[in-house]
């Protein structure tokens, strides 16, 4: 099936050029890896008059560290992140999540920024970016702004980007020593979306950050769970109390991929295992990154 409607294809070389095009063509769709945009075009889920391909913008494919901040450009693919020693050193849980995204042929094209711009509730980049307290850097008609990932996801397939704005990167303050974990429940390796995603960061001093994906309208942090865990080892919290906090935090749906009950049960199991793995990794042990805990 071909893409039925016609659109103009533009290819800016700079951010100012891209912003001018977005200003001139209201409703234009930005194209990076295209692994979501192209199927949407084919399905008529979107019918933009203009598509703005940002792949010629210099520097957009960079992963770098400066002044204590890791920056991921909007053209950085999941494969780029997996191959990056800098990412492995500073944000191993995000790299672990990258390994779970679809398959090699999609990861070679799909970008991390695109993943959170599509903002599906099951997006694999969402929970790790939440626990790393990343920010989305945006340029637009009103200048530049930085949106904390905590405020980025507004609803299923909806994020905080305004008309005419362009994401210019994701920034992550270097977390320092930590153990991380991303666990993904899916039916098979390959193309499946997460039925549950759990990201955990264990920081020195029994400080934990916990985020869930695919069990609510948006990926989200779970502050009540973090407070309960604070100050103790991962096994110190009463398991029944922890399960109850998980049940309160999540709002899973029934769909073709999994039932509400299954998602609930697995959210509890995955939180426990991710906590144990993250805490062990903080201490230099635990399963190697990339080895799924479920």
């Amino acid at each position: 099936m071909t893409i039925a409607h016609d659109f103009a294809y533009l290819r800016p070389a700079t951010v100012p050029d891209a912003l001018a095009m977005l200003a001139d063509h209201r409703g234009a769709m930005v194209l990076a890896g295209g692994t979501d945009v192209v199927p949407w075009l084919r399905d008529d889920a979107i019918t933009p008059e203009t598509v703005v391909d940002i792949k010629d913008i210099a520097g957009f494919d960079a992963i770098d560290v400066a002044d204590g901040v890791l920056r991921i450009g909007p053209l950085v693919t999941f494969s780029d992140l997996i191959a990056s020693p800098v990412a492995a050193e500073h944000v191993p849980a995000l790299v672990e999540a990258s390994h779970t995204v679809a398959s090699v042929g999609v990861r070679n094209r799909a970008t991390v920024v695109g993943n959170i711009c599509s903002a599906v509730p099951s997006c694999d980049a969402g929970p790790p970016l939440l626990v790393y307290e990343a920010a989305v850097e945006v340029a637009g008609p009103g200048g530049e702004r930085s949106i904390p990932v905590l405020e980025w996801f507004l609803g299923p397939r909806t994020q905080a980007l305004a008309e005419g704005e362009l994401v210019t990167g994701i920034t992550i303050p270097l977390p320092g020593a930590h153990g991380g974990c991303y666990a993904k429940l899916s039916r098979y390796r390959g193309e499946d979306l997460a039925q549950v995603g759990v990201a955990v960061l264990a920081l020195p001093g029994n400080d934990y950050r916990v985020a869930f994906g695919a069990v609510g309208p948006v990926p989200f942090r779970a502050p009540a769970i973090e407070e309960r865990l604070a100050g103790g080892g991962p096994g110190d919290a009463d398991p029944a109390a922890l399960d109850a906090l998980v049940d309160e935090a999540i709002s899973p749906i029934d769909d073709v991929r999994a039932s509400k009950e299954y998602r609930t049960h697995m959210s509890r199991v995955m939180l426990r295992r991710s906590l144990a793995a993250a805490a062990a990794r903080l201490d230099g042990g635990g399963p190697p990154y990339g080895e799924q805990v479920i």
Partner: protein
Amino acid sequence: MKHTIEMNVNGEAWAVDVAPGETLLEVLREKVGVKSPKIGCERGDCGSCTVLYDGKSVRACLVLAVEAEGHEITTLEGISHDGLTVLQEKMVELSSFQCGFCAPGIVLSVHELLQERPDPSADEVKEAISGNLCRCTGYDPIVDAVLEAARIGPGDRG
């Protein structure tokens, strides 16, 4: 609005007129005349349209042809123009495929893996082809052929 794109397909320079809405898969099959990338799910799930894009496997159904300006595309035809590769020979020998619809995509996915990891583990092979659906074989004879080909090495045939 038509765009004239220049790209390299299997070592040949091509200039093709394309509309923005045409996918690389459609243009390869209908305008360049390369038929090994198959039209399967057309949403990036099945892997049967896999091609190498600057040496990296991508889904040709998820790339607009107009994006390919200046890029190098390799299809199955491009890696076996001097005859079958060792990998393909082992796949024939071990009856890796039945209907063969998934074969071009799987050969290219494995080709990419073997370029990066000449001696992969069975798990790495499974990961490399996890985005290529095969509904005939259950994958085992494919994985066996890859491991066997890796053991022998590519020799002078890539």
